[in-house]
């Protein structure tokens, strides 16, 4: 892609998440302790593995947010699907069946979200808030209010997020990381260049215009939420793999982390703006901050404060940049 195809402003905006990540890494490099412990192949493997769940969720959430919606049921669906994964393993299903069925469960929940939003023209916030409760309830019911530990572990699922074989080197990466990277590439093309992707942007930019242009807004919305649900389902499999158990009370508040990753990645909550690479970088940046704080042995609350500030800063850049430019110009 030629650089001239972007306005310089758009270009700056598109690379902003990458610049943000670079700044974070630069700050880390200035600290001796982090320099020696953070920048290690093995540690980056850890960070990547820690990124997987939020990153996969963020891919689904990016579709939803770019289309002008929001999905608050993400965290609950991840918990539900981690329980579903455990139950399927208990029933003796293999890797393929576990993946397909769990993703299907997530997709059906998303289908319900999208169907209700489209059919009754309801606010996505409300519908998915409801689904957040429903999915959490169902997962507790399904798991009998306790964690589900399959008696015979399924190694292929457990190894998706397992990095314990060679903790000190970057390679080999766990399968889950490769899966997430592969999906990121596919989804980048889908959102940027496919007809469906154009429709997602069109609906998020202006739903009325999309309707006027003959785009079947309702059908597309249902597809968007169903697809997002499928991603949350896959994230649920990863969640299971991380803990090697199905936990109905896990991933509380995860939807907010996912939304934060998407927003740090440059998406606008009013729709029409956002990108998959940005969202994945956003997820990675949050994992880096958490990991770095861990190495520094900062207490949990410090991490929370830092990540909170980063979210505001990332979104505030839209306003801060013009101010900085004005100040710089004045200085000349």
């Amino acid at each position, binding site marked *: 892609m030629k650089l001239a*195809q972007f306005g310089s402003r758009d270009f700056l905006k598109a690379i902003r998440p990458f610049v943000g990540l670079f700044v974070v890494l630069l700050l880390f490099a200035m600290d001796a302790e982090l320099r020696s412990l953070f920048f290690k192949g093995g540690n980056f493997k850890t960070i990547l593995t820690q990124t997987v769940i939020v990153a996969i969720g963020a891919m689904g959430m990016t579709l939803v947010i770019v289309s002008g919606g929001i999905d608050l049921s993400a965290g609950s669906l991840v918990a539900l699907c981690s329980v579903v994964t455990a139950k399927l393993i208990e029933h003796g299903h293999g890797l393929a069946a576990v993946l397909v069925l769990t993703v299907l469960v997530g997709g059906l929940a998303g289908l319900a979200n999208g169907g209700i939003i489209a059919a009754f023209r309801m606010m996505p916030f409300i519908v998915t808030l409801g689904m957040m409760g429903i999915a959490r309830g169902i997962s507790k019911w399904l798991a009998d209010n306790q964690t589900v530990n399959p008696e015979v572990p399924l190694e292929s699922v457990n190894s998706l997020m397992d990095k314990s074989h060679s903790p000190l080197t970057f390679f080999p990466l766990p399968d889950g990381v490769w899966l997430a990277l592969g999906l990121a590439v596919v989804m980048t093309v889908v959102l940027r260049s496919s007809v469906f992707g154009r429709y997602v942007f069109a609906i998020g930019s202006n739903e009325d215009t999309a309707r006027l242009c003959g785009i079947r807004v309702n059908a597309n919305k249902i597809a968007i939420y169903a697809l997002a649900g499928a991603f949350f389902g896959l994230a649920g499999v990863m969640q299971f793999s991380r803990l090697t158990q199905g936990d109905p009370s896990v991933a509380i508040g995860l939807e907010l982390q996912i939304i934060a990753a998407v927003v740090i990645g440059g998406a606008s909550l009013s729709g029409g703006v956002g990108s998959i690479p940005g969202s994945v970088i956003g997820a990675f940046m949050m994992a880096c901050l958490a990991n770095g704080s861990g190495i520094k042995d900062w207490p949990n609350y410090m991490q929370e404060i830092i990540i909170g500030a980063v979210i505001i800063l990332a979104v505030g850049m839209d306003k801060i940049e013009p101010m900085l430019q004005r100040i710089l110009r004045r200085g000349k």
Partner: protein
Amino acid sequence: MAKETESNPLRLRIRGVAKRFGPTVALGGVSLEVATGEVHALIGENGAGKSTLMKVLSGAHQPDAGSLSLDGQPYEPSDPLHARNSGVAMIYQELNLAPDLSVEENMLLGNEPQTFGWLHRGERRRLAKRALEEIGQPQMPLDVPVRSLTIAQQQLVEIARALVGEPRVLIMDEPTSSLTQLDTENLFSVIERLSQRGVSVIYISHFLEECQRVASRFTVLRDGRSVGSGAMAGASLDEIIQLMVGRTVDEIYPRTSRAAGEPVLELRGVAGLAKPSRVDLTLRAGEIVGLFGLVGAGRTETLRAVFGLDRLAKGSVSVFSREASRSTPAKRLVNGVGLLSEDRKEEGLLLGRSIADNLTLTRLGPVTRMGIVNSTAQATAAGEWMARLDVKALDATQPVGELSGGNQQKIALGRLLHHEAKILLLDEPTRGIDVGSKAQIYRLMNELSGEGRALVFVSSYLPELLGVCDRIGVMCRGELTEVRPVADWSEAEIIRAALGQAETGEAAA
């Protein structure tokens, strides 16, 4: 030039004002004088510098050179609040009201009489009432939410709001762009009233006839300079247009001979859920049929129902002799029917997306392979339409929201052309755009009908309907009353039909 006389002292003087943004010269020397109580028309194409000048006057921008004075005192507003307190009030083209707040709350917003944060209820009433009386609207209800008012009423509330601060200069930017002829007349009498009370009004409009009607003097801006000014009474429209565009406009409404062909769109007793109540119309290939009516007559609703955006309650729609009454926009587009929305910002365009995306959205097929859109092919296709429509933009990737109104409208129209629509339903295609772009759109419409396409042209501006259309239909209260060839209408007859003859007296009051 305005003479300083006892009765008409100079209110506002702008001398050699210049403003540049980086390399772009927005204003290259503007001079303008407005007397007390004078209505002064500021005329110019989009991009001529009108809005920059207004921003300088209202304190949003500071000029690089030149001077401003108000009632003989130097006037250097540092921000809009300062300008308002100095007595310069501005009414923007887009309504700036909070729809859920009441009329009174809107009028006093930011100007509330208060003591330590406590509102004075009685004082508010008094101020609001006084402002409404000043514009001759004492009957306007104060407690209803603004959203329940018509656009015309909202406009009046906006004017009344500006008057609460007792301005000396009132700037109105395209105040009639969403008003009907009748409401416009009403607005003019309000302006007249204000001028009699000594308020100077700077009136910005693309409608030259309006400027002629309401203003006593005018100034024309072109390329950031004031290129001419004088008394309205002594100037002809052609002279003013010539000043605006810097060249002669021989023919605003070109009309090559064309012959109507087969019927392509037939509406029989079409009724929507609320509006329209009954529309019968036969549109033939190669003809342009105009639809006139007051705002609320049901013209937009008719187009929406035909296009499948709103549900049809009764009647039948046939496209290319095939009955297809129940439909969706997607199906209509497949059958070659395209709609240009009256509201390009809210409905017509994806303002944040590129020109290329907007032009090709309804027909991505030719630029797509296996579900993947080829950006290069898309940009090439868009580039061709941009050239044909003479769109002024950086390139096909520029967001549509950054373009001027005229260029935005060309993109919205271009989408129908890229779609190869055979039946074009155009709802107010020239609203709020400059004369040059209007002329280009008229020329384009003429070309399209020459190619055998059929056009429905909804407009509230009679001269353009009379100039462009083959036949004109008039809608009144949801009904299409009459469709006649243009030659069989007089302007007065059309307006009478639009008012519904029996109601003439009441509606004009």
